[in-house]
């Protein structure tokens, strides 16, 4: 896992009030227990940190955490490019 992925997981754990150890990249958001309210807080914090815009419907609850990290990384990279 990259340093940025570690950073993102830390933000998710903080915003969703979750134990970091539960945030397995292979797990689906719904299985981790991330609900829609958690997700809006997470998106808000990540937008703040990286200065990006994440569409409200960017993620499905059936997405894996790894897939979500990939999408966020792509947005951050696109901004940097």
């Amino acid at each position, binding site marked *: 896992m990259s340093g940025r992925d570690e950073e993102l997981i830390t933000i998710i754990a*903080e*915003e969703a*009030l*979750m134990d970091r150890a539960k945030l397995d990249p292979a797990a689906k958001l719904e299985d981790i227990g991330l609900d829609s*309210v958690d997700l*809006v*807080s997470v*998106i*808000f914090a990540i*937008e703040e940190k990286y200065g990006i815009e994440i569409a409200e419907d960017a993620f499905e609850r059936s997405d894996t955490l790894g897939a979500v990290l990939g999408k966020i990384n792509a947005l951050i990279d696109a901004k940097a490019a």
Partner: protein
Amino acid sequence: MAERIVVTGLGAVSALGLTADETWASARDGQTGIALHDFDTGPNGSGVKTYPAAMVKGDAGAALEAVLGRRIAGSLDPFALYALKAAHEALGQAGLLGAPLGPRAATVMGNGIGGLQTLEKGYERLFGQKAQKVHPLTIPRVMVSAPVSAVAMEFGIKGPVFATSSACASAAHAIAQGAALIAGGLADIAVVGGSEAMASPGGMRSWEGLQAMSESTCRPFSEGRDGMVIGEGGAALVLEREGHAELRGATPLAWYVGAGMTSDAFHLTQPSLDGAVSAMRQACEAGGFLAGEELLISAHGTGTPLNDKNEAAAMRELFGWAAPRHPVIATKSAHGHIIGASAAVQTVIGLQALNAGLAPPILGYLGADEDCAGIDLVLGEARPIRAKSLLVNAFAFGGLNCCLAFRTA
């Protein structure tokens, strides 16, 4: 005869401590929670300003998470956090933690203004930082019912749940409403009280604008008093139908015996004698307190020139020649004015005072003011009392008065 309502648990968070016991011990020992505190409006504001304030010390969020065994503090504005912490403590003392409380339980808690700190942060982003978005959970954190929703969810309370708001009398109205739900048959248990966390940069500037704040400290009923000191915190009581408490084998701490509620319909910030006297009279009649027996009075006692003059006059008018018999305490001199939570914090301290047989001293007192003569102020240090009854006064801006009556025997 209607079944009595018993108090089976107390909880508090204040500048005097993170629990009811700590809050009581500090009040009893004459320790103040008031100190100078810096309020910073941030890089886009006008800078730092220092005011006397009674801020919660220590980490109430960490203390709550330690007892709940999970993370929660980050999801709540401080005013909801204080309510939840106090409710947890009160339910623990009542022996009601564990199983969900269900449909026969209620919670009613008061606050004056909602989650001001969250709102202020959001608006600072919008107007100061020119950000496009505020935190997505701004509304559910700010709403005045956030504390009762948090309490209901945490303890599985599925009966009547709502907040009361009547400025500085909010918690008094909440306690009376919780008792009314039990008396009216809608609940067997009611977690009642109030919380407030408006000691924020904007909140303090707003109070300053009203010219109601002291420049030094809160000096209830004293000569030279110059205003109130803002505090923060929360307190909760568990009220219970007596038969329900007996069946569980719960230990009664006190009995709620009535309330008085009036509105001055007069002025937004000035008190009226009639409104205060009438509310006190209703509560005292409900409690049978007018027979001359020693009564502990937890005064509204804000330390403003007008309130204390009016409140002392109200006591003289109501009790007449017997007024000097009743020890008067004014604990805002220690925990500050916690606005919508004040009446709950004062009730928690007052009931412990009755059970300890000790009245905590009024702090900051400089000397007698003839406007406040003819009442028995508890000064210096804690004083032994015989009183088994408590009157708690709450007289709010807008002329909203609510007084509560309790007995311990």
